[in-house]
Structures are given as C-alpha cells and as structure tokens.
C-alpha cells in the first residue's frame, strides 16, 4: 500500500514538473510573438506624419482589437513613458479607430474589480472614458477608486475635483494618497474648492491633514486665510500642517501667524513654525528664533538653528552671538548650524 501511495505521488510530481517545463519554454515564445508584430504597428502610428491617423492594414487593426487585455496593458504602459504628447495623440486616435477605447469603457462596468481596474488603467494610458470613469471615483474597490483618481488628474473638471476632495477622507490610504497627488497635479483649478474644504467645520483630522498636505504642494495664496485660521486648531498635527502651508505662502498674515506659533505649547509646532520662517526668509523673526535655540526640545533647537542659517547674514549674526551663550545646548546647536555647507538644504525633513 505504501509503495503504491509513493509511486502515485511520484508520478504526480513528474507530471507537474513536465508542465512547468512546458510553461517555461512556451510562455516566452508567446511573449516574443506578440511583441514582434505589435511593436512595428505602434511605431508606424507614432512615426506617421501629419494629423491623419496612420493607415494600418485591416489585419493589423483586427489583431489590435483581439489582443488580450493583459497584453494591451503591458504594451501601452511600456509606451506610456516614451512617447511625446503629439505621438500619444496619434496612438490614441489609432486605438479609437481600432475600437479599443470603446471596449475598455464597456469593461469599466464589469462586475469583477480587477477588470474595472485594468479598464480604468488602460483609459488612463490611452485616453477616453469621459462617460464612465468619473463614476468609478466612488467604486467599492479602493484600488479602482485610486486608479480613477489618476485618470481624474489628467481630465480635471470642477465636479471631479469635488469627488477627489471627498477621497481625502477615504478609509484606504492608497486612495487618499492618489487623490492628494491628483489634486496637486491639477493645481490651480483645485485651489478654491480645497480652501473651502479645509475651512469647513467638523472635518476629521485625517482629512484636514491630507488637505493641508495638498495645499502645501499647490502653494496658492487662497490658502492663506484658512491656513492662518487652522494655526490655532486644537489638534497639534493640524497646527503643524498649517505651519508648513504658511511656510510656502509667506505674506504678512502668514508670517504673523507663524511668529505666534513660535511660542506654541507643542514642540513640533514650534519647530514647524521656525522651519517655515526659515523657508520664507523672514529675518525679523531672527531674535525669536535665536531664543528658540534655548528650547528644551532638541527638534525645536535644531529647526531654529537651520532656519537661522537659511536667513543668511542676519541669521548668521545671531548664530555667532549664540555660540557664546551660557546655555551650552544653545551654543552647541548654534555652532553646528554655522558649520553647515552652503549648498543644499541639509537635514531638513
């Protein structure tokens, strides 16, 4: 009996191994085959002159239409990084003519999450999807929502901006990241809605922080008032976020708020405010920042030292004065800050 069991098990092993060998050899052959005929087709489209779509043979169009969906994704994602915008338009027109865009749009309504995902991904690569993709910003699957955010970044409208703002409070971190990324990429069009978003009451900490992160990336003057208002928020993390935004904006209102934050009870807020004033180059704050070199928290002393260094001559004067301060921690940090090289913003998180 044992012999029989062992023999059967061995036979199964050998069979599976043979299957593995077949897959290893022939999978590659298939990849080589589709790459060999598809590459020239796309190159012809990319290199064609004038505004007309390249005239491809019926056979080539048929083959493009019947390319497996996964192969389409591979092909066009490889193309995505290498073509210019004009070449991309030619390829997109070609793919419309071949019916690939229509097929992808139909797949956006599929019941299977990964089919919807790949469809949106393909539409992000090749264009199209205006009628179906926006709805996927509310898809049950977080990866589909995240991909739809990427698409929305390339096709911004006020309605899509609002949907992206809604995703800043998404339970999925990937969605929040993609939405934030998309809003930064959209830029000025999202400034007004974002300013209203972070001003609105009863926002969760998570959504406020995400919103402030986007505001920091866009750095639009319309964020000045809401960021200043948030500089007195009850949550420490929000005050830090607002300091970072104000550091990108400057202005009298902003610098006043930042100087008030230099005496905040939380060390991270004081540090963020000092850092922001250094970024702005607001030298009138130098005396207050010099005083921060005596702060009990290392992170505050560190930020103040770097900020003074960033102020140039006024900051250096204060640093040099502090090197002889009776507080040895302040003196040490001042000496270290003075010793930094001219190039780059070193050690600034």
């Amino acid at each position, binding site marked *: 009996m044992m012999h029989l069991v062992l023999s059967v098990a061995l036979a199964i092993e050998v069979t*599976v191994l043979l299957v593995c060998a077949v897959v290893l050899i022939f999978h590659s052959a298939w990849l080589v085959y589709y790459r060999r005929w598809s590459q020239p087709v796309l190159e012809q489209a990319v290199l064609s002159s004038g505004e007309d779509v390249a005239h491809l043979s019926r056979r080539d169009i048929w083959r493009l239409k019947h390319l497996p969906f996964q192969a389409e994704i591979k092909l066009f994602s490889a193309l995505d990084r290498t073509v210019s915008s004009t070449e991309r338009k030619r390829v997109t027109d070609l793919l419309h003519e071949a019916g690939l865009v229509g097929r992808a749009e139909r797949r956006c309504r599929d019941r299977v999450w990964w089919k919807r995902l790949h469809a949106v991904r393909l539409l992000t690569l090749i264009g199209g999807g205006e009628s179906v993709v926006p709805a996927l910003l509310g898809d049950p699957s977080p990866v589909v929502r995240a991909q739809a955010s990427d698409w929305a970044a390339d096709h911004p409208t006020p309605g899509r901006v609002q949907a992206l703002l809604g995703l800043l409070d998404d339970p999925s971190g990937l969605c929040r990241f993609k939405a934030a990324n998309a809003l930064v990429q959209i830029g000025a069009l999202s400034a007004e809605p974002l300013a209203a978003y972070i001003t609105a009451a009863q926002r969760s900490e998570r959504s406020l922080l995400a919103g402030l992160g986007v505001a920091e990336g866009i750095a639009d003057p319309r964020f000045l008032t809401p960021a200043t208002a948030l500089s007195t928020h009850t949550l420490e993390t929000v005050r830090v976020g607002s300091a970072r935004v104000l550091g990108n904006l400057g202005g009298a209102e902003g610098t006043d708020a930042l100087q008030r934050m230099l005496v905040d009870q939380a060390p991270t807020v004081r540090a963020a405010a000092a850092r922001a004033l250094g970024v702005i180059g607001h030298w009138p704050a130098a005396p207050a920042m010099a005083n921060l070199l005596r702060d009990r928290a290392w992170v505050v002393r560190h930020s103040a030292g770097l900020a003074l260094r960033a102020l140039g001559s006024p900051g250096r004067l204060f640093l040099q004065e502090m090197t002889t301060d009776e507080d040895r921690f302040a003196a040490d940090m001042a000496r270290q800050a003075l010793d930094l090289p001219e190039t780059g913003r070193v050690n600034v998180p």
Partner: protein
Amino acid sequence: MISPEVLHLLSTILIWVEWIVIGYFTLVNTYYAVILVTASMEMGRYMLEIRGEAFWRVLASKVAPRISVLAPAYNEATNIQDSVQGLLTLEYPNLEVVLVNDGSSDATMDVLKQAFELRPVHPIYQKRLYTKPIRALYRSELHSNLAVVDKERGGKADALDAALCIATGELVCSIDADTIIEADALARMVRPFLASDDVLAVGGTVRVANGCEIRGGRVVSTRVSRRPLAGFQVIEYLRAFLFGRLGLNYLGGNLIISGAFGLFRRESVLSAGGYAHDTVSEDMELVVRLRRRGYEQKGPHHVRFIPDPVAWTEVPTNLNQLRRQRDRWHRGLAEVLWRHKKMFLNPRYGKLGMLSFPYFVLVELLAPLMEVIGLAGLALGLYLHAVSLEFALLFFALAYGYCVLLSGLSLVLDELSFHRYERVRDRIGLLMWAMLENLGYRQLTTLFRLEGFVRFFLGRRDWGVMERKGFRADARVKP
C-alpha cells in the same frame, strides 16, 4: 558481532525514528503545500492589482513620504562608487542616502571622498541610539542628498543605528552597500505604506547578480550563472522569496525582511531601540521585535513582502564562503527564535504566534536536524535490512522530487509574473539547476546549517568574512 536481540532492538528503534521522520516530513510538506497555494493566490491577486500601474507617476509627487536609504559599508572600496551612484539615481522624488563607513581598513573613505567631493560638516543629529563614536560626518558637494558617516568599527547593526540617527526620512530602507537596487524599486516598495497605516515594514525580492551584466550600477541583462554554486543559489533565492515569503503574507506574515533590502517606518525602529548589536541576524531580530511590540502595545504590526521591487546581490561562489554564510544564517535564526520564544504558539500574538512563528521553528530551524536524522536512519535501516531498498529509493525520490517541484513551481510563478530570464537557455538552465540541486548541494547546505545549529548551542557569535569580487561598471559579474 551484534547479537540478534540487540539487532532486533536497534531495528525497532530505527523504525520508530523513521516514523517520526515521516510524520515530520508530512507536517513540513503540508506547510509547504499550504504556502504554495497561498503564494499563488497572493501573487495572482497582487499582479492583478499592479499590472500596468504607472509607478513612474510617483516621481512627480509632492506628497510622497521621504525615504532615507541606509547603507553600511565595511571594506567595500571595490564596489562603493558604483553602489552609491546607483543609489543616488534611484527613481524616487524625495530621497536621501546615508552611507556609513564602519571603520573600514581599506580605501573605502578615500574612494568616496574623491568620487563625491565630500566635505566634512559638524554632526548635527539627535543621538537617540547608542553607537560607537562617529569620527566625522560628510556632505557631498555634488549631491546634496548624500550624507556619509565615518565611524569606528562596530558591526553592521551599529552602523545601521548610526545611520538611523542621521537619517531624516519618514521611511528608511536598509541595504547592504554592495546590493544593487533597481531604479523603480522604492517607488514600488512605498505602496503598502501608502495603502495602510498598519504596515511596519516591507520587504522586496533579492535576486542573484552572478552571471548578470551590470552597467553603470544597474543590472541591464539578466542571465543565469554557468557555475553550479551560483546557479543553485538562484533557485534557492527564487524559492525563498516568491514561494516562501509571499506565501507567508497570508499565514501571519513574515518574520524576516532581508537585511539586503527592506523598508521600515523610521520612528517605529527608533522607538524599538534600533538594531540589536548582540546577534548575527540583526535584520530578523528587528522585524520580530517590531512585530512583537506591535502586538503587545496594540500598534502597527504588519510586515508585508511584495515581489516586484528587486535588489540584486552577489552570492558566494566557493564552498568556504557559502559554509560561513549558511552557518551564520542558521545560527542567527536559532538565536532570534530563542530570544522571542514566548511567542511560540501564543494566541496573544495572533496568526504570527500560532502559524508563522511555529513554521520558522518546526520547518526552518529543525529541518537540517531532521533531514540528517532521516538520511542516517534510512542508511542504517538499509544496512540492518529493516527497510527495503525499493522503499528507500521511492521515499528518497519522493522527498527530493517534492523539492524539485517547489522549485519548478517557483520558476513558473516568476516566469508568468515577471519574465525576468528572457533567454530560453537560461530558463532551461534554471530547471536543470533545480533538478541537480538535490544531488549534493542541498545535502551540503543542510550540513552547513546543522553546523550553525550546533555552534548556536556552543555560543559562537562571529560573522566570518565574505570576499567580494565587485560590480565594476561595464562588466559582467563573474559567473
């Protein structure tokens, strides 16, 4: 001359031992079968999720978290310039490189100073971890995001701790200085952190660079080495990463992130006290400690392995180096598991304690011991006629055939997912190495691991020396 009674007793004991070995064999292969299924499911799901994703978009992101790459280096004068150049050209928007010269006795610092125009600066960092004294801190005039720490020799863990104190990134990527990370690896590895706040660490795939063509600090052509030792190790690494670690994602997660390539939350590592200095497996010990703290303090505790970020490393090409390496790995495994033995079959630690930790104890740690007992028992059984030759051959074929099967399926997983080895002869070569692996090489590594096991009990703590041939620009890594 042995008396019949003694002979009978020996045979009985032998049969009992063999049944225990068969029981162990069944348990181990059941684990492997489960891991194979979970690895395939995980790979399938993951590839569906990332296929066609434009990772390059993160390059333009202003909200991507800052990553500090921590690279300890000891006597790496041959490799160091290419390695650092490769790190500085990684495709990630918010990157810092912290290289630590851990008291090298060769020209490592001279090479760095010349190649990157280093300028000494007064060290300005918060010493949150104890390390051997730092002699100097340098910044590069050419690359503002490169910091070089020159310190007294303290070992890899000490060097990593020093780098942790200097680093400013929210995430830190620990690597070996001679590891080549693929350009888009960090953009891929950051994904799990973006997806969940509960992720502590992420590991990627380490592949064997021997035989590959390296140009400008990048692997430009993937080849399989013609040399048996390196070829066998390609199979081992593929099996370990694409089968073992991927499968463990479902079964409580990994206990190991390769020290050659892992991404961690910096604050979590600092809060846990950094790397342990009193173990030869500081990478595994850190991961286990982080996860344990996560469970005990009800904080983040997930460690994920994702297969698509890749780092390349040079593997030993002679038996002495291989022996020292495997000895050290197994000793380290034993040390860490013993240190954290409280977690074994402890429901407080969830799937980690009930599935993943027992796997490492029963399968990874005890395997060489049971294998040697099994083989010795089989040989003795044949000599005493307690076991028939036919049965012995069948069992041997089945056991090692199963290993070949796992290797073959790992190769298929790799081919269908990543298609790294483009040449047919390379894939055939890999299959051949998979089949030959169990005819001598596997037995050797089993002995080396057993040696490590014994040395653990004897209290040995040394690392041994790994001789590097180096990744010269425009050169093929010697097969």
